[in-house]
């Protein structure tokens, strides 16, 4: 009993930090509609910054003042950096499709991660204990750190302060107004630019403070940003995007769940958080205290798709021809690199089917990729299935996953749908990670090699090329079939789609299943390429990679994602092997591309080949 109480208090202390970060994210989303992926990075900067600033201030001010000044000063400094980022980068992106902002903030995350590595090194750092709060109090005979007890109060205090600020000050009034109706606030003559900058800086201040106050509790490391951003996404979604009170409620819920989950269900701790989120979203599609959002626009539906014109068709044919001749002029290592790029082209194309055609944003597309990989690997490992059968079983498992997920997703749209897909991917990941013997757990499954005829890198490359080209042509055919048009119609205008007899739910469900199947196929090929599978193939970074490829290439056409996969995968693989700080370069490139080319790489092609829009279209729509 006493132990349980202490555990509960522990949970509450963690909830404070979680709430600080989540409320910042929620505020920023409410006003700017930006899902700030870099929020975790700012949290991490807060922790590292406080660590260094404390050491800087120590000789001048001594432990007491040094520590207690370092925390807020760091948060202020990080907020200033954030204001700069908002002015220089995000301000250019407010009119762009929502996902582009996510892409840009993801680029920022990559940059920050490497900067932290450069400045502070890869080792974990231990912060100082909090001066004045070093001891512990005895609660029902159990020791409880004094600092944690102080942290208990931080969450509610910040919540009260935010409530006061939002309801009693002019600035807060503007923020609430902007959360409800941005256009109206602008029409009333409020300078939006500075309102957005201010809110972004405030949100980041809270995140950095959340990071800084963790200093005496935990070691700090360069993975803490990504770690916290996932938890915070979950908190914000459970609480309801844009709701501060919802964020408080959800942080307590999640923190307690983690505190007790470890005791009660040690085997599924990792899944627990996401199970709760999925359950909440199914019952309340807008979170506990959230209001329904206008659906997010992944694509601005303004430009019709065009069939491939003859020059493009010849160009693509030439590209495939060139790719087919690769075994003649590429070595073994480069051939397997090329195979990997091909596989990710298919992965990106499958994500495009969901996002570009269906308008269904997925943050967890790796789930299908991973299910495909494991479907193949499990059938080889346990059933000794031949490669052909395994390549079929992979997509089948992914299809099963997509059918399950799609059933839960029917009522959701926009960011909430994206979050449920993320939760699904995390659940799949945890099941595989904690699966023990049958899935190989953390060690994965090894020895998934192709059969003799496809064993050489050249032969496997040929197989991959054939499968990928065929699959991408199928995706294209599907996108331009009556089914594809109907799915796109439901995305363009749900009202009109319903009014001409198109059932949105089932169509989107089917779209998800097709996308899952193709992603699963890519995953199955990947398993044979690597000869092994690991839970990594379901993890968040892979889902993010997919998003980056699609957004980088441009979501408007199928060519975009395929091109994006080529550029991103090619770049990241060559950077990883050539440069130490590849994330820095890649992140910088992403940010530059997102701000300079909001339509993605394929947007450039469009500028070049821009066809006269009014010309009589006499050509037959063919592939």
């Amino acid at each position, binding site marked *: 009993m006493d132990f349980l109480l202490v555990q509960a208090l522990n949970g509450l202390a963690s909830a404070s930090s979680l709430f600080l970060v989540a409320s910042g994210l929620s505020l920023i989303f409410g006003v700017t509609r930006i899902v700030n992926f870099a929020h975790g990075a700012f949290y991490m900067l807060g922790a590292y910054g406080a660590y260094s600033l404390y050491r800087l201030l120590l000789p001048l001010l001594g432990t007491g003042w040094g520590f207690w000044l370092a925390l807020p000063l760091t948060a202020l400094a990080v907020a200033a950096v954030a204001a700069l980022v908002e002015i220089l980068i995000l301000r250019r992106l407010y009119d762009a499709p929502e996902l582009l902002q996510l892409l840009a903030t993801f680029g920022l995350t990559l940059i920050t991660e490497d900067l932290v590595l450069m400045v502070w090194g890869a080792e974990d750092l231990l912060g100082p204990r909090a001066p004045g709060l070093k001891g512990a109090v005895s609660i029902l005979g159990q020791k409880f750190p004094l600092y944690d007890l102080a942290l208990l109060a931080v969450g509610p205090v910040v919540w009260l302060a935010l409530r006061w600020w939002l309801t009693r000050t002019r600035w807060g009034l503007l923020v609430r107004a902007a959360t409800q109706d941005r256009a109206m606030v602008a029409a009333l003559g409020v300078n939006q630019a500075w309102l957005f900058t201010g809110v972004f800086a405030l949100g980041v201040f809270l995140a950095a403070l959340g990071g800084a106050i963790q200093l005496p509790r935990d070691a700090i490391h360069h993975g803490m940003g990504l770690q916290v951003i996932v938890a915070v996404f979950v908190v914000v979604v459970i609480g309801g995007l844009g709701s501060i009170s919802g964020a408080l409620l959800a942080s307590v819920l999640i923190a307690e769940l983690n505190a007790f989950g470890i005791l009660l269900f040690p085997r599924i701790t990792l899944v627990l958080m996401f199970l709760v989120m999925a359950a909440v979203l199914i019952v309340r599609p807008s979170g506990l205290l959230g209001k329904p959002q206008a659906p997010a626009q992944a694509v601005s539906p303004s430009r019709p798709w065009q069939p491939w014109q003859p020059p493009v068709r010849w160009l693509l044919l030439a590209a495939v021809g060139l790719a087919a001749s690769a075994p003649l002029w590429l070595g073994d290592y480069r051939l397997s690199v090329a195979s990997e790029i091909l596989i990710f082209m298919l992965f990106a194309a499958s994500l495009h089917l969901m996002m570009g055609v269906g308008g269904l944003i997925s943050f967890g597309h790796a789930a299908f990729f991973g299910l495909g990989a494991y479907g193949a690997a499990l059938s080889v490992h346990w059933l000794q299935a031949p490669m052909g059968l395994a390549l079929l079983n992979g997509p089948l498992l992914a299809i099963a996953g997509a059918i399950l997920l799609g059933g839960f997703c029917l009522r959701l749209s926009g960011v909430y749908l994206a979050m449920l897909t993320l939760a699904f991917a995390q659940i799949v990941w945890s099941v595989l990670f904690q699966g023990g013997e049958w899935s190989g757990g953390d060690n994965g499954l090894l020895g998934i090699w192709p059969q003799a005829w496809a064993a050489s890198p050249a032969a496997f490359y040929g197989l991959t090329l054939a499968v990928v080209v065929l699959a991408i042509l199928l995706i294209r055919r599907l996108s331009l079939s009556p089914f594809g*048009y109907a799915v796109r119609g439901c995305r363009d205008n749900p009202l009109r789609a319903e009014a001409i007899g198109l059932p949105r739910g089932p169509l989107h469900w089917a779209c998800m299943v097709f996308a899952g199947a193709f992603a699963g196929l890519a995953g199955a090929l990947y398993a044979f390429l690597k000869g092994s599978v690991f839970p990594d193939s379901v993890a968040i970074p892979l889902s993010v990679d997919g998003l980056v490829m699609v957004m980088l290439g441009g979501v408007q056409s199928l060519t975009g994602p395929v091109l994006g996969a080529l550029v991103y995968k090619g770049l990241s693989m060559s950077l990883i092997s050539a440069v130490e700080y590849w994330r820095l370069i890649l992140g910088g490139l992403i940010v530059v591309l997102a701000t300079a080319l909001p339509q993605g790489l394929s947007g450039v092609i469009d500028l070049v080949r821009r066809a006269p829009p009014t010309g009589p279209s006499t050509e037959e729509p063919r592939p």
Partner: protein
Amino acid sequence: MSCSLLPPVLEARALRKSYGGVVAVAGLSLSVPRGQILALIGPNGAGKSTTFNLLTGHLSPDSGDVLLNGQSLAGLPPRRIWRMGVGRTFQVAATFGSMTVLENIQMGLISAHNRYRALWPWAGALYRDQAMALLDLVGLGPLGPLPCATLAYGDVKRLELALALVNDPHVLLMDEPTAGMALAERESVMELTVTLARQRTITVVFTEHDMDVVFRHADRVAVINRGTLLADGTPDEVQQNEQVRDVYLGRGATYRKQAPDAER
């Protein structure tokens, strides 16, 4: 009226709908005979939008029923109602932004032929001639290959009209068909609608704010106020109706009562 002897195509029976404590529609009954063009009018907040949405299936009534050719539509989603031959247009024209003008119509035809599940054919090659014919019908023939987002608003409304005709509806429900259009455009779009409706014996129910449009084109005008029918008859009858005048113009009673105060 003489035409009410014909069997009704669309019939509303004692429709009631309230939002919280506010009764928007309070026991409204209407029956529309085949081929009639009926305008639903009423001042703001009279309940005509609610009535309209009850007819289209976007809202379900608290009590009462909507019958199409004697068959109840209660609880059916809009897409089912469409499949029973009821087309509709929206106040803010709803079309598919990522498709060309022609593809919009092709999409409609694909759905009308129940082929939206087909995975193999090229959608762009299906029902081209039929789609072209429909576009010609509404005067958009040459604009087929244009992205629908580049059209002038009047043309978007015409496109929507063509889209509403893809399944040869016998009833057409139009929510403010001329809202947001220039004066000259209003006339020509309404003219077109009425001509097409007469040619194909389509029953039309529309809501409208522009009284010129209403009295020029409707066979019959139903005035809704406070959720019930205030008047129902030919345009002439309704125009002569004292109560309708009161609702729309006021009696001047408020003015007279306040006038003495104003002198002080």
